[in-house]
């Protein structure tokens, strides 16, 4: 019988160091992503520095000017108007897209033939680049030959101003944004609905629960994580929207649709005031950062509950 020998002393064999090629491997694998990170951080940090200078495309030299650009921005009426437009636009499109997306997802969450067809057809706007989508809409709303114009003529409406009036311009771009981006929300929510467990709904059916009860007490709470994901993606995109507004009205008429993205671009590039445009983008970054962090926090809570 073999007994354990408690007095045995194990020989002191030094561990062999891994060859350097093995030790360096994890860093090599990380190297490309670190390079990408540097590629993102370098212009970001440089931009922060430039916001404290007077750098401009009008000169090859620049100097440090402290907080001049930041103070100028915060005391500018155009900046605060742009903040208002940004919030107005993003809240409007987010609410509309979430509501319409949810309704469509619920309506198409079945195996009927029309659901199968519509699920494919409704995704088409998402495949179109926003600029092309805006071009399509500007052709459709053209007062001479546009499809929308001919449609409105049936009801006796001629020469609808669309993006040419401050009364209707916001409605116009919101409509285009909803047309392009609701399919994204629809895709996410429908996938979420498909993944919901069936047993609570079967139990509710047995207990005689109404459709509204099912939606409010079962569907919504179970779908919360997916709703939050859709909300986070759309919020981040809507707050920094540029393509749709620039392609349609360039922020006009007047400054009706000039949001923060557009104002920053106009200031930095066409007006060549690079150092004055950077603080505006920084403020936008802070807003998006704050909003997305809060939403991710809510998302984590919904997952835990």
């Amino acid at each position, binding site marked *: 019988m073999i007994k354990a020998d408690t007095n045995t002393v194990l020989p002191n064999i030094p561990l062999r160091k891994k060859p350097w*090629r093995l030790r360096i491997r994890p860093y090599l694998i990380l190297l490309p992503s670190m390079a990408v990170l540097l590629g993102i951080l370098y212009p970001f940090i440089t931009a922060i520095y430039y916001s404290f200078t007077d750098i401009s495309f009008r000169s090859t030299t620049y100097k440090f000017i402290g907080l001049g650009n930041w103070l100028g921005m915060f005391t500018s009426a155009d900046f605060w108007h742009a903040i208002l437009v940004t919030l107005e636009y993003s809240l409007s499109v987010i609410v509309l897209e979430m509501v319409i997306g949810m309704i469509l997802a619920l309506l198409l969450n079945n195996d009927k033939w029309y659901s199968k067809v519509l699920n494919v057809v409704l995704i088409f706007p998402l495949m179109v680049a926003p600029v092309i989508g805006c071009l399509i809409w500007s052709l459709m709303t053209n*007062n001479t030959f546009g499809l929308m114009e001919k449609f409105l003529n049936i009801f006796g409406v001629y*020469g609808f101003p669309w993006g*040419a009036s401050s009364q209707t311009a916001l409605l116009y771009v919101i409509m285009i944004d909803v047309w392009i981006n609701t399919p994204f929300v629809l895709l996410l929510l429908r996938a979420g609905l498909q993944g919901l467990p069936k047993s609570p709904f079967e139990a509710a059916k047995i207990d005689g629960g109404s459709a509204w009860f099912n939606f409010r007490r079962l569907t919504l709470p179970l779908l919360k994580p997916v709703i939050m994901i859709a909300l986070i993606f759309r919020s981040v995109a809507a707050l920094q929207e540029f393509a749709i507004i620039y392609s349609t009205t360039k*922020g*006009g008429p007047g400054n009706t649709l000039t949001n923060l993205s557009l104002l920053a671009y106009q200031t930095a590039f066409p007006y*060549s005031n690079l150092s004055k445009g950077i603080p505006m983008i920084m403020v936008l970054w802070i807003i998006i950062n704050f909003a997305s962090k809060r939403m991710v926090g809510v998302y984590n809570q919904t997952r835990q509950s």
Partner: protein
Amino acid sequence: MKKKVLSILLAAAMAFSLTACGNKNQPADSTPAGEPSSGEAAGGETTGDAGEFSWDKFAGQKINIMFVEHTLTTDMINEIESFEELTGIEVNYTTIPEANYFDKISALLSSQSDTLDIFMTGPYQIWQYASSGYMVDFDTFLNNPSMVDPGYHVEDFYEAVLNSCRWSCNTGEAMGSGSLWGIPLNFEADVMVYNKRLLEEKNLQVPTTTEELTKACEALQNHSGNGTYAFACRGSLSWATLITAYQSFYTTYGGTDFELGADGKMVSTVNRPEGVEATEWFVDLVKKGGSSTWASTTYAEAVGDVGAGTAAICVDASGSCLSVCLENASEEWENLAIAPIPVAKAGQDPMTQIYSWSLAMNNASKAKDASWYFIQYITMPDTLHDMFVAESYSNPTRQSTFESEDYQAILAGVDGYIEAFEASVDNCTMYYTPNSHAFEVLEGWCQTIQELVEGKYGSTQEGMDKLADTLTNIVNQ
């Protein structure tokens, strides 16, 4: 072992994938940095090389061109092969949409990059780039016989057009004197295109004054029922809106934009009585006779509406007006005619704003002489003549092209074009005061016009007073 090889290959592939993908025609480097080409001093300066002119003097050099997407660009690209055969100079080029073009050019010029030798530009861009020292003065080449083909004939260019590329870079000084910063390819003056049939139906004469234009538009509004209107012009939020119809009318009323104050700083004069009167008249015209979508109308939509018969009259750049008058170019082409733009007082000469597309050179270029050869080649009398005749372009920059038989034959088919051109070519000039904040000034001005049309202000004077303050602050920042 396999895993080791695979992981290294994967890491290498990810590292290479970070390399930006370039355009097929991504400009290659021009002559090596610090190595002067023949005829150039170190740093790319021209040397005033003595001797006779010869097209192959700079053979072996490379130049990089950034074109804007424009009808002329296609023609210039078509000439590259024959230029390379003639000179032995290699040409690399990139084409960029106009919407982003000057963003790219500004970044390259301000970083003093030598990857750009030649670019396209207009007068407003010259104000910014030349005053920043980014451009080359073409007089250094034109005054050197060894660098100019004897058949070039710079005097063949219309003086007004050449002057739209000439500026002293002195604050407040008008264009037309000083260095020559670009060689013009084409130019635009403003004309009026109108539908003869619609005017005849309403027993209207072709308006020659702004008062007549207003009366004509009142009669022509809804001329063919709902959705049709009298007067089309640009209105979208853009500097381009301010350099066509509005500016030509503004000037005819005696309106000015800036003057030099006693302290040498520019002060805006848009709120003077002449400017206010001009603006009030224009806003009234748009409200009474314009489209309900005026504030989003581009030049394409404005002339398109006249071509389709939706609008009766349009004032815009001559090129776009001509484009709908050519045979089968539009539904109403047979009924369309061109006339000089109406003036504020009878008997006045039309005072139309000029815009020109020209070829310019980067001051940081290390292949200036070779670049000049390309610009010279493209703007030779024969080359420009062939381009304009082949494509029926409007407004040639050379008199020889305009006066040639084949070009006159093209224009003869467009009612009134030759007369309108001859009436405006000597008086078309840059009426805006050069300043390096031109785009901010013009877009701010356009914004105010849009707000006035919307009725945002209690009066035109109020709007223009606010605009004057804004513009004064912009140019003095």
